[in-house]
């Protein structure tokens, strides 16, 4: 069946779009669709798309099957006695309903588009930021649930790309832990202390904790780090001392420690 239509193989956003276009362009009564004709044109479109290497999604194939099914149902004669008892529904009805609903939403989309055209022609110039800045108030930023999950996803992505310090492995050593402490205190705030407890909590294994403990002692011994306790029985903290930089830049002392653990 050849369609007298001139489709320039437009890219349809799904089979409903294609069917609607076929129906509307030929000014076909949607309540009385010539299924054989439309099915032929539909399949023709699919063939031409295939020839041009346009990949059609699975819904197009599913719709083709639906059309062929409706066509065969219309062809089969029905028992007239039965038809009197149970009046059969037009096999096209479900499809027509879907097409009409789809068309309504296409019109709704067009309506939204027109509203945007109007809104794009108006400008608003709220002065709240300027006003609040002048009055010493701070503006804010609203946050949605979507932002929350997006942020969490971002955090997890960052973990993947983060340079890892080999502290999870079972063969973690004291020199490893010295490097780890170097990392912790290198970027950390200078005057502030870090709770030793927190550092221990981050370790995944007993061995890692022991190595960390020994590493702390070594660094305290060479005056790279100092132990602090704010009050009796209070939390023990570690603090960066003056020797920190020299210890890690010269490397001599560290080499000696490394030697000791090999």
């Amino acid at each position, binding site marked *: 069946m050849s369609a007298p239509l001139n489709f320039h193989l437009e890219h349809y956003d799904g089979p409903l*779009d294609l069917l609607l276009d076929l129906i509307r362009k030929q000014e076909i009564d949607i309540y009385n669709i010539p299924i054989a004709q439309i099915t032929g044109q539909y399949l023709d479109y699919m063939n031409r798309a295939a020839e041009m290497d346009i990949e059609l999604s699975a819904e197009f194939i599913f719709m083709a099957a639906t059309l062929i099914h409706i066509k065969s149902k219309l062809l089969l004669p029905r028992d007239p006695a039965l038809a009197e008892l149970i009046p059969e529904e037009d096999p096209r009805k479900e499809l027509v309903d879907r097409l009409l609903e789809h068309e309504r939403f296409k019109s709704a989309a067009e309506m939204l588009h027109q509203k945007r055209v109007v809104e794009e022609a108006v400008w608003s110039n*709220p002065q709240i930021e300027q006003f609040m800045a002048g009055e010493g108030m701070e503006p804010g930023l609203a946050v949605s649930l979507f932002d929350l999950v997006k942020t969490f996803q971002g955090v997890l992505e960052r973990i993947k790309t983060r340079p890892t310090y080999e502290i999870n492995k079972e063969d973690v050593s004291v020199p490893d832990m010295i490097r780890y402490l170097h990392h912790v205190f290198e970027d950390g705030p200078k005057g502030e202390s870090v709770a030793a407890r927190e550092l221990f909590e981050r370790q995944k294994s007993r061995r890692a904790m022991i190595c960390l403990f020994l590493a702390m002692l070594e660094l305290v011994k060479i005056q790279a780090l100092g132990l602090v306790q704010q009050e009796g029985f209070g939390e023990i903290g570690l603090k960066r001392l003056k020797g920190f930089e020299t210890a890690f830049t010269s490397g001599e002392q560290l080499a000696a420690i490394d030697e000791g653990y090999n």
Partner: protein
Amino acid sequence: MDVTQLAEERPSASAEQSEDAQLKAILEAVVYITDEPLSAQQMAAALQQPIDRIKRLLDEIVAEFAKPEHGLSVREVAGGYKMATKPEHHEAVRAFVKKLTPPLKLSLAALETLAVIAYKQPVTAPEIMEIRGVQGVGVLKTLLDRKLISEAGRKNVVGKPILYKTTKEFLVQFGLKDLTELPTLKEFEELGRLEIAEPEMPEPEVPASGAPPEASETQNG
């Protein structure tokens, strides 16, 4: 606030009038300043004034700016009041708008998905795909990113899919007072029938700088 003090001191007619003027001035300043449309209730509560009075004064402000000698308008959008330039002066105003940011451009697929959500909300992704007859809801992410839709809990069916609804930002972006301002879907059905007779879509009130594509002709995928 001195407005309320005034009310207690002098209940004479002329005092009432000058107080009205002052309240109106404050309302105008507030509508000018705020970026989110504020409702009459919010303004009444903040100014400690009866809602009826605030509504009457806001109506007066809306009417005043509606006059042709004003280039600004105060409109009811997203349940609140918003000041903006009038669309009929867009050509002249556009030339003076300095900050260039890309306007909210949505593909037809995104607009259709948005239409489905606007009319069927709250609605799940599978339901949207069913109506559109298309697999894939990638545009949902675009709409979420642009804060035109948001999550609205989950549907109590197998798989507990996420429900979506339109946002206040949607109302603002599309210049809608509220969702009831949307034409009913039935009205579109009639429109669709008219379209058979006259396939050209009516021109939008304000022509864009180029012809907008007709939804019925420009398909995309």
